[in-house]
């Protein structure tokens, strides 16, 4: 096409300058569009991202592989394994947690559902459970009423909560996991003030225990009461806790938490249980259910160093725990049970030991004095979203311990990868020396949605 000739009159009869101008404008626009679009896209904040919907839900799906080395010959391997030659165990598991909320005015319905399945040499096992489902009503910011199944996490401790009188027991190696609740009715009152007392809040919980309702809490056919008074006084969190009811014995608690500096926090808990019941194996292999006046307390700190190392250290004492001598009797009893089984194929002592294990000797940290430490380094060597950590639990009575190094990476949005190794060490007749496993390697992958 001869543009010079066209230029004299132009196509469609337009003056040539206008055509050249239009072409140039279109070319420039075409070249600019990606820049404009990219510029808009680069940092945009759309309002639909923040629009609130009455129904909200989310959760995570998890895959986990664990490789355990069996602590052959240990007390708990004798108690739990039918095949004594087994040296390792691999376990694959998957779980799904779905939580959500539906809001309608001052009323909201909340839920947390959990499903899990695992496969190992023992076979396939699965579970589904409603961890929480409750209705709450909030007519004013001062008042909340709750009815339904709800999990309570009272106490300031990271690894243990001696004052968590209506809590489920948490795993000190995974204290941040969701736990199943109890069916309760709750009233929560909050009041703020000017002056040294900044906040006061009173939480009152009614926890019934009937057949098929909270029957794992304690003795059935009782209605129990738990009360927590929270005060923020002179920049210190203080909780005064009281529990009364016939499902468990009456108990009193106090906890506190305070920042001593911008990077240094201390916390503590103290619980007094005048009539704590305890199942105890005696030297003559008889079983005694005794009532003791027990105090249980915890003192801890959290410190952030200049190079972003967070340290959590907690000391825990529990009067109701078993002494070294008590644990010695128990481990000896298992050994006798095993000898009896080998000699006469009689498993009565081992069955009794299993029952004792469920009634207290086999629970996590059954002893009296523990030291917990957790160190986690935020983004070492400027590697963003990477957090290596080291957790240790020492049984101070028998000098046994667990050491758990781990690495967590959260660099991919909504994914969390965790690699963890646990080693259990200790001598004969010690808590960690008699564990089922000597060590455990774990790879966990979580996707949040």
């Amino acid at each position, binding site marked *: 096409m001869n543009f010079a000739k066209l230029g004299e009159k132009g196509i469609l009869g337009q003056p040539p300058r206008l055509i050249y101008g239009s072409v140039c404008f279109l070319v420039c626009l075409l070249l600019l569009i990606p820049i404009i679009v990219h510029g808009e896209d680069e*940092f*945009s*904040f759309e*309002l639909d*991202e*923040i629009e*609130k919907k009455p129904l*909200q839900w*989310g959760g*995570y799906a998890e895959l986990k592989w664990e490789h355990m080395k069996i602590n052959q010959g240990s007390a708990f391997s004798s108690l739990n394994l039918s095949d004594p030659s087994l040296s390792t165990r691999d376990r694959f598991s998957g779980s799904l947690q779905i939580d959500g*909320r539906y*809001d309608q005015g001052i009323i*909201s319905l909340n839920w947390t559902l959990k499903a899990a399945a695992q496969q190992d040499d023992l076979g396939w096992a699965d579970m589904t459970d409603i961890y929480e489902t409750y209705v709450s009503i*909030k007519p*004013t*910011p*001062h008042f*909340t009423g709750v009815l339904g199944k709800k999990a*309570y*996490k*009272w*106490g*300031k401790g990271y690894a243990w909560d001696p004052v968590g009188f209506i809590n489920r027991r948490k795993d000190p190696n995974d*204290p*941040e996991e*969701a*736990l199943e609740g109890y069916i309760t009715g709750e009233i*929560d009152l*909050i009041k*703020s003030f000017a002056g040294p007392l900044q*906040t006061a*809040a009173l*939480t009152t919980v009614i926890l019934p225990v009937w057949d098929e309702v909270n029957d794992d809490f304690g003795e059935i056919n009782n209605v129990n009461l738990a009360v927590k008074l*929270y005060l*923020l006084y002179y*920049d210190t*969190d203080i909780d005064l806790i009281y529990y009364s009811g016939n499902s468990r014995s009456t108990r009193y608690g106090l906890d506190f*938490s305070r*920042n001593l*500096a*911008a*990077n240094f*926090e201390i916390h503590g808990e103290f619980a007094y249980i005048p009539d704590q019941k305890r199942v105890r194996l005696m030297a003559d292999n008889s079983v005694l259910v005794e009532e003791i006046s027990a105090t249980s307390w915890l003192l801890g700190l*959290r410190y*952030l160093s200049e190079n*972003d190392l*967070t340290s959590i250290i907690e000391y825990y004492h529990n009067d109701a725990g078993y002494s070294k001598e008590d644990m010695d009797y128990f481990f000896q009893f298992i050994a006798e049970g095993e000898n009896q089984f080998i000699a006469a194929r009689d498993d009565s002592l081992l069955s009794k030991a299993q029952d004792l294990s469920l009634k207290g000797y086999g629970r996590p940290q059954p002893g009296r004095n523990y030291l917990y430490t957790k160190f986690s380094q*935020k*983004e070492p060597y*400027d590697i*963003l*979203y990477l957090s290596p950590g080291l957790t240790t639990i020492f049984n101070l009575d028998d000098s046994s311990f667990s050491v758990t190094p781990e690495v967590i990476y*959260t*660099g991919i*949005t*909504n*994914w*969390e990868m965790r690699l963890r190794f646990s080693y259990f060490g200790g001598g004969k007749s010690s808590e960690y020396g008699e564990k089922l496993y000597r060590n455990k390697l774990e790879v966990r992958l979580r996707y*949040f*949605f």
Partner: protein
Amino acid sequence: MRCRHLFKIAKKTLVITFFLSSVWTAAACALDGNEILRQVDENMQPQSYEMYRKLINIEPDGSRKEFVFYTVKKGQDKMVALFLSPASEKGRATLRLGDNMWLYIPNVGKPIRITSLQSVVGGIFNNSDILRLDYSLEYEAEKVTDQGDSYLLDLKAKSPSVAYAGLKMEIDKTTLLPTSIDCYAISGMLIKTLHYSKIKDFGAGLVRPSMLETSSPLYKGYKSVMLFAKIKKRELADEVFTLNYMSRVDELR
């Protein structure tokens, strides 16, 4: 003789006047600096408000991580921020009452005390950036430099619990809005630089930057951008800023 005496009196008067005027000027500058800072706070947000923010962490390879959170503030020292996304952080809330800070994680189910220097989300931003109170509450103006179109304020933290020991804040003279802030550690080391941009009308007379870009010599190649939306004045009960309320902050939206 009389002339000499008069000369002595004049000399003394001059010295005293010079001394007094120097003292007055210094005092006036200090006052002006704090007044400018108070004006900056007033121009940046109402005393009690709600707002939405998006934090974008950008890595050297261009990959991004985005966080959206909802914030409410009351008075000078009460503030709470709730994460709305991504799903892995959703429901996390951080509360600040003066120097006290707590973090609530839905799975953990109870608030735990945290330090202002800790990072909740990873990356360049820390808790203090997310739960920042008024500049004039946390900092004292030590020096004001007139730079023509802008002021440069040298600010010193009023208490050691503040995340940055010192700030150098550049303020546009016409709008009295900050344009850039250098944040320093107590050692004098530059920790990060903030750049405010994209002035936007948020309504009700609030015209302020809608974007904050952050870079840090400690994280070379990394960048963080914070976008602001729907900042508006809101009156809230004091009880909203308590531990018992942390699990319910979303109900305010």
